[in-house]
């Protein structure tokens, strides 16, 4: 029996590429509704391979992936696309229409949704994410940050429960990365489950409530983000390190500063209290 609020579950998931590369090795993972989850790990640790199973882009070599009670082995891409929106690392790999409006309509149209409903959804997303001025623009004429936003929005019009974003920072500067993360946070606030993959530990610390650490196809840690970053030794084994501010907190541990500090603001509050004493 699956617990009611589990939206994605992998059971002993294995994925082997071309019969020899074991990219994912026996992963058991449960993602609950409304979570904001980060997956971190070195290049080649299996992050992307794992998440591509969530919407059936990849099927398990062995083991099972259950999405909203549906085993991906028996599900069509269309059934899964309704549940899981997947945003590729490179937005250009998924943009394929001539205007932003058509791009946003593309997914739901393929799901066979009623045109009036599609229009309402597209209008809603365009309004929500301030894309009106781009409605009739060709997606490839937009800057990279806006193309990525359109890619995210084009999954949203399918109204998925879960949105997976594979590295929201590539080709973006800091402000653009934060803008995109704010957009995901906003969606999470509306009850959608968010999963993102990144190498940017600051974004993980500031946005993810739970963090999964992968190494060589396996999960080596899966906990609250502050707890994960409290173990610099285990992270070092996976060639990762906590954000700079967390490292500072750990080096000042003898003053009673907790090891799981996640933001500059949090650290500032703690330092002020200690100085005032």
């Amino acid at each position: 029996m699956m617990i009611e609020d589990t939206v994605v579950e992998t059971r002993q998931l294995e994925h082997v590429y071309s019969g020899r590369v074991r990219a994912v090795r026996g992963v058991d993972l449960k993602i609950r509704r409304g979570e904001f989850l980060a997956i971190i790990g070195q290049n080649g640790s299996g992050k992307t391979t794992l998440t591509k199973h969530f919407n059936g882009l990849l099927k398990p070599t062995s083991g099972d992936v259950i999405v909203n009670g549906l085993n991906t082995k028996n599900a069509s891409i269309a059934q899964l696309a309704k549940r899981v929106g997947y945003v590729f690392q490179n937005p250009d790999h998924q943009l394929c229409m001539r205007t932003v409006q058509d791009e946003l309509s593309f997914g739901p149209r393929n799901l066979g949704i009623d045109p009036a409903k599609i229009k309402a959804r597209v209008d809603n997303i365009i309004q929500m994410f301030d894309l009106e001025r781009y409605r009739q623009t060709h997606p490839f004429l937009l800057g990279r940050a806006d193309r990525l936003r359109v890619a995210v929005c084009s999954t949203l019009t399918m109204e998925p429960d879960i949105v997976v974003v594979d590295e929201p920072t590539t080709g973006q500067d800091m402000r653009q990365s934060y803008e995109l993360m704010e957009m995901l946070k906003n969606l999470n606030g509306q009850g959608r489950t968010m999963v993102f993959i990144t190498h940017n530990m600051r974004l993980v610390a500031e946005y993810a409530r739970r963090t999964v650490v992968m190494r060589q196809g396996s999960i080596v840690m899966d906990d609250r983000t502050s707890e994960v970053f409290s173990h610099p030794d285990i992270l070092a084994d996976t060639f990762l390190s906590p954000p700079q501010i967390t490292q500072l907190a750990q080096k000042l541990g003898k003053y009673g500063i907790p090891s799981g500090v996640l933001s500059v603001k949090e650290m500032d509050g703690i330092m002020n209290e200690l100085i005032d004493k």
Partner: protein
Amino acid sequence: MKEITVDSLHWKYATSDRWVLDDVSFEVEQGEFLAITGPTGAGKTTLCLSLTGIIPHGYNGVWEGIVTVGTLDTRRYAAASLAQHVGIVFQDPESQFLTMSVRDEIAFGLENLALPRDEITKRIEDASKIVRIDDCLDRAPYELSGGQKQRVAIAASLAMQPEVLILDEPTGQLDPVGKMEVFSVLEELRRTKSITILLVEHLTEEIVKYADRMMLLYNGKIERLEKTSKFFDDVDFVAKKGVPIPQVTQLGHMLQSQGANLSHLPLTLDESVVMYSRLLDHGGK
């Protein structure tokens, strides 16, 4: 000795409606390590291309001003002859790979210079040792990890024995280990070869450890060009222009504005541990 002199450089592509580089002037000393930051669209890549002669020779557009690398005016020399003086490494190393083995990849530029076979062999050995890829010379570049690929691209540039190495966000797609591999190679190059390095990079927490000076490019103009120790003096200004502030520096700025007694803002983790320990030991207000 000046290695690079840029004097009132203006450039716009045939398709741009404004200057992409708008009256840019600066000089770089031989052996200096200059980091260039700025938001997307600031003109960082265009500046890199302008220092290698790829702009104006390879692009249509309007150029004003003078760029001198070593003693060469880049407008008068084709990018090919400048390539012996200035090497460039792009964000995506695969975009510059042409061959099926690391050895051939490094040899490519050298063969184009028609160097003797022995000289080519020796340069391949030297360059691959410096970036620590000498154990994968016979592998295909596309089989390597991201950090290794980027080091192959750097080795291919190094083998040309340039006086200047320009790197345009070389760690953008790399994981933290890959990034550190690239930074440590740059550090070593500078120490052992005194090559002049210009690095475009957003990871300010890392580059403050290596760069002598930092430049903030914004809308095609130089908004700030300072010694690294002074670059973040005006934290609010730099942050407003979209440059990530090292977290320990940001913390110092907040504490200072709340009345803490700090002589200056720390830039690195090690420095900040010392300063903040002192603050906590003595109470600091």
